[in-house]
């Protein structure tokens, strides 16, 4: 890492917003982004003219080549900083890092980060599965009927083989997040599920079944980053960025250096080091959960439990609100919402809300330190970030 200037305590997230979530046929993809952005701006108590930077990710339903410029145009913004960043599910964390650098260096004062799309009504499930299969290598994976759930299924199968992780433990992850989603007023899914229902849901790619897979939602999320000084004058208590780290190891699973060691270990280590905290200090974790195996692996790699113990942690109920480490308190991508880069972005939104307090039944009491992990590709790109309601 060299002698990089630390981003610790330099910036804060001061506003968060979610669009309407679920099937929202009355809104376009850019419209959902606009709704989330407006809600984040109102949440912060800022004016449109305060925004001088915008970062967004990518969209399958609004495939503008220059999505950042297109979104600025739609929003009527003429910022001095703008980019679209494409690192799959890791994009939101990476956008936060770039926003933090931008603000810390004084290149812009207030950066709006937003992402999402109308994946449910603009694509539909069949088209979404087909489009997402194009993430596979065109010559060496797509040719063989490769698909995203299939790649994650091979990772799950390997984890079961190496550590004895069980089908029931994978199901426990889905049940855990669904229970949390029921406490969230804006979550896509509104009915409880049981382990038995997960195990008897439609087979997708063995060992993964339908309820092991994330949702296809219409949704967008947004957050606003400004300097720690400026943050003190705004509506809500700031969520300070204490640490952030990335690691990138591959894009296609066939080229991954390992099928059981991924980049979360190192992205987490960088974030912990910058923040000056360790896993035992974290009060709440929002872990990327495109498939049930993923938060199990992240829990292990981020040092919360030894390798192989992640499944048992979920099965024992330790990830519930009120448990040892509440995980995905909003319901995650399995039950709250998933649409492109919005999925991981909602983890950041939820972490900020948990740090402010006041989330009622969903509130993790006394939460001071929140960890968010985003990953993109097939556990290819990782970003870990640590937020707190106090400077570290």
């Amino acid at each position, binding site marked *: 890492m060299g002698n990089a200037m630390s981003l610790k305590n330099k910036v804060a997230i001061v506003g968060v917003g979610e669009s309407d979530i679920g099937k929202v046929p009355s809104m376009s993809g850019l419209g959902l982004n606009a709704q989330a952005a407006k809600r984040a701006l109102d949440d912060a108590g800022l004016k449109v003219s305060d925004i001088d930077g915008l970062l967004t990710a990518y969209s399958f339903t609004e495939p503008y080549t220059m999505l950042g410029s297109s979104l600025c145009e739609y929003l009527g913004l003429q910022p001095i900083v703008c980019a679209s960043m494409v690192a799959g599910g890791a994009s939101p964390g990476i956008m936060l890092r770039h926003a933090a650098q931008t603000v810390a260096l004084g290149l812009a004062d207030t950066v709006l980060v937003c992402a999402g799309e109308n994946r449910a009504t603009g694509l539909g499930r069949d088209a979404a599965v087909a489009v997402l299969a194009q993430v596979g290598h*065109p010559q060496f994976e797509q040719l063989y*009927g*490769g*698909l995203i759930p*299939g790649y994650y299924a091979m990772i799950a199968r390997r984890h079961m083989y190496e550590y004895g992780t069980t089908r029931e433990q994978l199901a426990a992850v889905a049940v855990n997040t669904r229970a949390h989603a029921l406490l969230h007023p804006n979550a896509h899914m509104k009915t409880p599920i049981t382990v038995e229902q997960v195990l008897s849901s439609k*087979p997708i790619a*063995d060992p*993964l079944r339908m309820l092991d897979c994330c949702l296809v939602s219409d949704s967008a999320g947004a957050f606003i980053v400004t300097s720690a000084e400026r943050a003190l004058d705004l509506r809500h208590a700031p969520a300070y960025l204490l640490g952030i780290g990335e690691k990138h190891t591959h894009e296609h699973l*066939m080229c991954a250096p390992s099928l059981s060691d991924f980049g979360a270990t190192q992205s987490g280590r960088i974030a912990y080091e910058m923040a000056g905290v360790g896993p035992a200090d974290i009060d709440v974790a929002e872990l990327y959960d495109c498939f049930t195996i993923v938060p199990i692996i992240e829990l292990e790699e981020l040092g919360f439990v030894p390798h192989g113990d992640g499944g048992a942690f979920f099965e024992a109920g330790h990830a519930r609100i009120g448990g040892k480490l509440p995980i995905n308190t909003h319901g995650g991508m399995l039950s709250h919402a998933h649409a492109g880069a919005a999925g991981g972005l909602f983890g950041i939104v939820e972490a900020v809300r948990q740090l402010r307090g006041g989330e009622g039944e969903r509130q993790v009491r006394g939460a001071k330190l929140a960890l968010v992990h985003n990953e993109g590709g097939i556990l290819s790109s990782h970003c870990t970030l640590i937020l707190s309601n106090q400077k570290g």
Partner: protein
Amino acid sequence: MQMSLPQPEPNADSLPYWQAAREGRLLVRRCTACGERHFMPRHLCPSCWSDRLEWVESEGTGRVESYSIVHRAPTAAFAAVAPYVIALIDLDEGPRVFANVVGDDAFEVAIGDRVRVTFEDRGNGAMIPQFARVKR
């Protein structure tokens, strides 16, 4: 109506690989500087960045590192042949490849299984490497 499965679309990096496949040969890239073999052909060695690479023929034997039986195919063409097995296979020479496990015992596949390359006809002379379990 029978939808046809896709054919390879070679590029400058992969043309020799796909030409050899048409003749029933499995090639991998070998770096003449550091000796590392890699799959997914590239312009330079991903280990040492030497651009002095050669094509070498693989014995075509390897071991299943992981697999999945796919029930929900990504496209109509693959839906017509589902369920099918996808797998990551470590060739005995080192490189990891992705393919289907084929054959009448494909669904009995397990991690650690020995497999051997076989070639599947995708039409118009296009042959693609696949793997079958080695019977004991």
